[in-house]
């Protein structure tokens, strides 16, 4: 089964969590990114995630394989939404199971950091002032207008 998945509709974290349950697990760490109503001081109405799906899938799987090699964990999964999201919607979920919490926390942090920096997914934000734009960090500071 793929450990990384793009989801074009809302997904349920309870079943994702349940997939990682196992009698050997002592610690389970998870991280979720939710759509905030604010980005660097600008009021946000909603957003859209777009992915280069084939490469995102491959890069996501590579990151999870790295985490399994680097940390003493039992398993790790990640799901990232694409499409239109409203404020408060779940954008990304990471779950990691391990015998002990050190490895679970470290791997969970590694996965979300790498997913955010490497997986070809782009966020398009719509602002309350009517402006909108793609986020291409870092460097230009503000998202491009239009």
């Amino acid at each position, binding site marked *: 089964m793929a450990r990384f998945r793009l989801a074009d509709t809302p997904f349920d974290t309870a079943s994702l969590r349940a997939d990682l349950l196992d009698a050997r697990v002592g610690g389970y760490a998870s991280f979720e990114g939710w759509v905030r109503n604010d980005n660097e001081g600008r009021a946000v109405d909603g957003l859209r995630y777009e992915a280069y799906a084939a*490469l995102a899938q491959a890069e996501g799987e590579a990151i999870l394989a790295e985490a399994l090699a680097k940390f003493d964990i039992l398993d790790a999964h990640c799901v990232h939404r694409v499409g239109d999201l409203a404020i408060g919607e779940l*954008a990304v979920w990471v779950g990691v199971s391990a015998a002990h919490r050190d490895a679970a926390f470290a791997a969970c942090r590694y996965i979300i950091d790498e997913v955010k920096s490497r997986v070809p997914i*782009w966020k398009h934000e719509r602002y309350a002032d009517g402006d909108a734009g793609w986020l291409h960090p870092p*460097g230009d500071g503000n998202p491009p207008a239009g």
Partner: protein
Amino acid sequence: MRVKLLYFASLRDAAGRAEETLDTQAADLRALYAALQARHGFALPAARLRVAVDGAFADWDAALREGSEIAFIPPVSGG
């Protein structure tokens, strides 16, 4: 040399299309992007992009391959 190009995010908006097929004499991927940048008015310099060929990250100095699918990857913002 005929290649297929994929555009994402701000590059797609600037190009006004998600993909196109192109006949090009560009010596490598870097030269190809420079030509497209001039043509479509891409604001992002190559230094801020990555490039992928047939679904795998590639080196900007790689030569073009006939029939390959090339994607320019703007700075990502998932998560």
